[in-house]
């Protein structure tokens, strides 16, 4: 049954099959139940943005409570202890599972993979549509969980039992079950999406596109999907087990009947740590594309970059228990996980060096996407370096569950989920909508986000090192932590947050006026980039290419003095 399609035969077949398939569509099949990968990407993107607004509103409410304990928060009201717990839990859950995942993997993966490998759609468009529908359902279930009796789940985004397993402990019986169902549904959605991404990138590449001609960002999204598939299974099983513990009374995590609560921690972090790389890798890939384009240089060591990624992927499965150093695991075991955790910083550092080497000697243009990409590299590095403290089991005993962990985490995830997403969005906006964004507004938004971001989290490092614990809704009852000096830092961080949230209006205004512009001023290739998506029209029509491209060369042939244009698009015959 195996039939290897020869490139020439595929080309002839493609040309023959093309125009028939992509006719006019009705409103419903175009916007509401689309199978077109670009429209599904937009659905993921805008659902992710909407969820980011909800997650951002939550952080506003609980940061106000921390800075000004006991005040009536404008537009929210009193933040009681139970509400505070529900807010921080769902802020974390939303930002990771309903913002970072859908925007970085699903939206960019859907939009970019078929365009960059030069084909007309995903291999399974209807599975793709189903994946989004399940994702949307999961978001609805999660939002519904805030409004049931007892309120939203407040047991922390890691949902450790026994707190999460018993309603008499968490006091949010229905809320915690809905939370769990939403997370499980979301995993199913991304499993379906991931299978589609991997199969598409493996099988549907343009004729002539070899393994090492695939743009880095496609590689990264594919590797991230594989990491997700390989790590999420135990947590799906764990979610089923926890759900039954909550609702049927089974005894998986209940020590009374012979269960083990630590088991959940293993299942959770066996997924949870690779998950960091699942969202990191697409952001890494986006930055690589942008840095190459705006440094006008070939990516330094394309293959080494890939091999380090493979190394990171493998190592990422061996580090999970560094989240459990104080959970009572054997100290000898903790040594092993310390070593693997420190080891995994090596390939990541290597990737950062590859970016720097790519920049070196390039003719750098500091456009808005480039600023975001550079900021991603710089800020993520701070997150990486502070991770070393926490990976070392001795130091972690002190730092565990303090704001140091929280600040470290946000220095990794904010660059990934927010900076990386803005980098990709501003870079591919011309391709998505056929119009350029306003550069001045883009730069105002950039600085208005980056400066307050650092002002929020640097004080939190200091507070954490001073011993301030997480998940405390008011420090007034802790005399050592309630001193004015610390309270000033909390107020400072909260004000910085308000400034940062305010500057996001600039972004939405910029999107809106750019989208409303009459003239389509982007052209096919505004950034003079090499990869195949820039060959298509902006925005690409249903079916993407008027004639499906053939790939003749690697993805980053920039800065070539032999050519007036200084770059070779991938579809230019040799």
């Amino acid at each position: 049954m195996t039939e290897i399609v020869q490139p020439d035969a595929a080309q002839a077949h493609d040309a023959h099959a093309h125009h028939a398939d992509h006719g006019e569509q009705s409103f419903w099949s175009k916007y509401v139940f689309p199978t077109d990968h670009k429209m599904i990407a937009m659905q993921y993107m805008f659902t992710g943005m909407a969820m980011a607004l909800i997650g951002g509103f939550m952080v506003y409410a609980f940061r106000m409570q921390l800075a000004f304990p006991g005040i009536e928060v404008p537009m929210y009201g009193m933040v009681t202890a139970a509400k505070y717990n529900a807010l921080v839990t769902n802020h974390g859950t939303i930002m990771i599972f309903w913002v970072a995942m859908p925007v970085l993997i699903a939206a960019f993966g859907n939009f970019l993979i078929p365009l960059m490998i030069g084909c007309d759609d995903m291999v399974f468009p209807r599975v793709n549509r189903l994946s989004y529908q399940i994702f949307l359902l999961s978001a609805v279930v999660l939002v519904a969980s805030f409004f049931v009796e007892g309120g939203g789940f407040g047991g922390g985004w890691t949902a450790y039992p026994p707190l999460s397993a018993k309603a008499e402990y968490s006091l949010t019986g229905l809320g915690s079950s809905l939370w769990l169902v939403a997370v499980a549904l979301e995993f199913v959605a991304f499993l379906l999406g991931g299978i589609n991404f991997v199969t598409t990138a493996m099988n549907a590449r343009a004729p002539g596109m070899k393994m090492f001609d695939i743009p880095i960002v496609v590689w990264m999204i594919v590797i991230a999907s594989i990491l997700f598939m390989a790590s999420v299974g135990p947590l799906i099983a764990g979610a089923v087990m926890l759900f039954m513990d909550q609702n049927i009374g089974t005894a998986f995590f209940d020590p009374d009947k012979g269960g083990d609560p630590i088991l959940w921690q293993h299942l959770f972090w066996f997924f949870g740590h690779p998950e960091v790389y699942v969202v990191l890798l697409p952001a890494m890939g986006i930055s690589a594309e942008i840095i190459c384009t705006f440094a006008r240089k070939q990516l330094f060591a394309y293959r080494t970059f890939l091999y380090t990624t493979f190394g990171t992927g493998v190592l990422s499965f061996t580090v999970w228990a560094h989240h459990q150093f104080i959970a009572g695991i054997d100290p000898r075991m903790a040594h092993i996980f310390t070593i693997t955790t420190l080891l995994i910083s090596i390939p990541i550092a290597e990737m950062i060096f590859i970016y720097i080497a790519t920049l070196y000697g390039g003719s750098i243009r500091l456009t808005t996407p480039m600023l975001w990409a550079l900021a991603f590299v710089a800020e993520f590095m701070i997150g990486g370096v502070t991770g070393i403290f926490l990976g070392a089991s001795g130091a972690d005993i002190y730092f565990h569950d303090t704001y140091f962990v929280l600040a470290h985490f946000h220095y990794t995830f904010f660059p990934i989920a927010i900076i990386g997403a803005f980098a990709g969005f501003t870079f591919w906006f011309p391709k998505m909508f056929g119009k350029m964004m306003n550069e001045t507004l883009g730069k105002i938004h950039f600085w208005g986000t980056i400066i307050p971001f650092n002002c929020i989290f640097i004080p939190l490092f200091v507070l954490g090192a001073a011993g301030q614990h997480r998940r405390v809704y008011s420090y007034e009852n802790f005399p050592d932590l309630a001193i004015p000096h610390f309270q000033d830092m909390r107020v400072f961080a909260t004000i910085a947050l308000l400034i940062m949230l305010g500057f996001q209006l600039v972004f939405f205004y910029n999107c809106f006026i750019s989208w409303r512009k009459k003239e389509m001023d982007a052209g096919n290739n505004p950034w003079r980039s090499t990869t195949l998506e820039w060959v298509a029209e902006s925005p690409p029509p249903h079916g993407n290419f008027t004639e499906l491209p053939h790939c003749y060369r690697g993805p980053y042939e920039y800065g070539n003095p032999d050519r007036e244009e200084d770059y070779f698009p991938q579809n230019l015959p040799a």
Partner: protein
Amino acid sequence: MRPIANTRSAAGIPTGRLAIWWVVGSEIVIFGGLLASYVLHRLGNPEWAGYAAHTNVWLGGTNTFVLLTSSLSAVLAHKAAEEGDGKKAAKLLYFTCLGAAAFVCIKGYEWTTEIKAGFTITSNTFWSFYYTAAGLHALHVIAGGIIMLIVAESAKRNEELHRVEVIGIYWHFVDIVWIFLFPLLYIAK
């Protein structure tokens, strides 16, 4: 409407077969997580062997035989589909579905006797694992049976014959999961 992407085969493997292997891969991790949790618990609790002694090895063994037989007809269906004989493939797939139905019926009878004897999912952690693992597997058997009926329906008309192989790969996976579950839950003492 099938996109051109679906007809390409840059990796040299038909798209359907490639995708089902990824499905199987992610399923292996789901069952792997569940079974690894069970095995670690089991190693830490030698007294679970006493609970496991209450399972019905004969019914479990019969079910193993039923599933293996149904896998054989799935293989024969694939062979028939490769030869282009959709009618024969459909008949063999119906036979496999019959195996799935028999499996679920035997399982239902087995669970009824156990629940009547007082071993329920909430009795203790062993029984929680027993019903959860076997139940998750049974859901896969039911889902596979339903999909197989749909595939057989189109195979009967000699359409989409490549799907016979794809559902066959999935069915073997369901079979192999049982091959792991049976000794772990029933036999290990």
